């Protein structure tokens, strides 16, 4: 059958889009890589281990999974989208088996979310160093702390729930190191947004209660250990994020959760040819109009793919996209709430920038591309000796971004480092195109075992 709408991603934006569209009469396929709905934000353990932590999510999930016009296709990873008389979604079903299949739909809502933005530093390839989101995923999905004594570091408000979540699981949080110094202006911004103010106050009191130090203007600039992480070096930073000499100190830990904001997952919109733009945080995002529609007919986008702004904004954008896909008019109050939350997101992007001084944390032997083991020295060689002038050429000449993750982890860093070495503006598009959005086996490509078009 051909669905009237396929929503790709079952996080806050996708759940909300599917529900709005189905409530307005569309038959909806909710296609999601995850085994359970919720995406990263609403990640929760399977029933054997525990409950979903958010009551509002439980209500949303009940409405979605119980909806007569929504088919929830869990564990479906879309590796290619094919336009035509309808859209054909080529999927692999289940990470365990990866059985190829297709799903067809007249319209699409892309709600594929985001993953952590990583910055390299010496030793970040040691076991025990994780992304902040990775530590959070273990905490939310497996009720497991990533270590016994953990350092949380990076930039952005996301570090706070990560730290408090780890502490709740019994881990010792050795410290939270926020590279920016957002305090005063953040307080002013929060003063205008009471919901966010209450959330921030909750995290602050949780940190205080547990005696977890929170240091702004500090970063983890190196990780140390023989075979796995044993300690990190924390340094005070100047405004450009250059470490201040003499401020370094060593903090013992067996895990570090480090994240510098988020990178939206744009493989599918880029593959369809959707127009993109660079957002306030430097991320490549899908350009959408007031109804969340992209410039490709029949394709809407919502949530972090259109700009990193958090779950509340994603819920609203998803609802607007679902309504628009169903041809329904949006509620004016919804538009007002979206505008307010987008302003707040833009403010956070301003308060938590990632200035270029982090490149000074790297030595020539520091790994930049984790998959291929490409060091900063080899990237520098590609630019300075082999003449790469842009991230894509630097990738081709150094192999940074050519491994299994296809530059998802090192793409931001490679683009920024190349820009720094060439004295040009960072180009976030160079490493973003991945025509095959998920790895697929050659055998599955050669002999599709599913029905031919």
């Amino acid at each position, binding site marked *: 059958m051909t669905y009237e709408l396929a929503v790709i991603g079952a996080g806050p934006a996708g759940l909300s889009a599917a529900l709005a569209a189905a409530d307005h009469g569309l038959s909806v396929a909710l296609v999601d890589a995850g*085994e359970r709905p919720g995406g*990263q934000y609403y990640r929760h353990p399977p029933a054997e281990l525990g409950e979903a932590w958010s009551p509002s999510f439980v209500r949303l999930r009940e409405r979605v999974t119980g909806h007569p016009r929504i088919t929830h296709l869990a564990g479906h990873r879309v590796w290619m989208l094919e336009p035509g008389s309808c859209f054909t979604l080529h999927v692999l079903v289940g990470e365990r088996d990866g059985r190829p299949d297709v799903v067809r739909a007249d319209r699409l809502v892309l709600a594929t979310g985001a993953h952590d933005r990583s910055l390299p530093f010496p030793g970040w390839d040691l076991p025990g160093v*994780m992304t902040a*989101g990775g530590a959070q995923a*273990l905490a939310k999905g497996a009720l497991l702390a990533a270590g016994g004594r953990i350092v949380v570091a990076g930039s952005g408000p996301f570090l706070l729930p990560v730290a408090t979540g780890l502490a709740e699981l019994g881990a010792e949080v050795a410290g939270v190191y926020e590279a920016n110094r957002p305090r005063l202006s953040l307080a002013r911004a929060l003063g205008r947004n009471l919901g966010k103010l209450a959330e921030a106050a909750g995290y602050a009191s949780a940190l205080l209660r547990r005696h977890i130090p929170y240091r702004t203007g500090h970063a983890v600039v190196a990780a140390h250990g023989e075979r796995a992480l044993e300690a990190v070096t924390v340094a005070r930073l100047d405004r450009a994020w250059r470490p201040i000499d003499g401020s370094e100190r060593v903090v013992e830990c067996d895990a570090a959760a480090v994240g510098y904001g988020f990178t939206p997952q744009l493989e599918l919109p880029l593959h369809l040819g959707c127009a993109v733009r660079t957002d306030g945080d430097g991320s490549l995002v899908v350009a959408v109009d007031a109804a969340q529609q992209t410039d490709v007919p029949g394709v809407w986008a919502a949530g972090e793919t259109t700009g990193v702004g958090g779950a509340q904004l994603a819920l609203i954008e998803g609802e607007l996209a679902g309504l628009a896909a169903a041809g329904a008019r949006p509620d004016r109050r919804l538009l007002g709430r979206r505008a307010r939350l987008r302003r707040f997101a833009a403010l956070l992007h301003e308060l938590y920038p990632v200035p270029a001084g982090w490149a000074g944390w790297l030595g020539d032997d520091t790994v930049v591309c984790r*998959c291929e083991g490409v060091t900063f020295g080899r990237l520098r060689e590609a630019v300075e000796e082999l003449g790469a002038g842009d991230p894509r050429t630097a990738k081709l000449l150094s192999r940074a971004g050519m491994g299994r993750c296809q530059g998802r*982890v090192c793409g931001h860093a490679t683009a920024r480092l190349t820009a720094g070495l060439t004295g040009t503006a960072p180009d976030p598009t160079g490493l973003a195109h991945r025509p095959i959005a998920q790895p697929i086996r050659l055998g599955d490509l050669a002999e599709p075992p599913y029905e031919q078009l």
Partner: protein
Amino acid sequence: MSPFEISFDGRPVSVVPGRTIAAALLSAGIRAWPSGTSSAGLYCGIGVCFGCQVTLNGRAGVRACLVEARAGDVVTSVPSRGAGS
């Protein structure tokens, strides 16, 4: 539900039901394993970095952070670069 066992590189690992293979290995004190990428180990935790890939019941290239463990699963690390998939 009571814990069950999987095998990792020939040794038994006890698993709390509902956990992924990566979470099960981590809680058994196994933080990293050869995965065919240069920097092996659990890094992103959500299927983005491919650092945790294993061979699961003979099938190569499975991200351990995405798959819930089942009793009797035979998990092997990828012995050398490129040999697994």
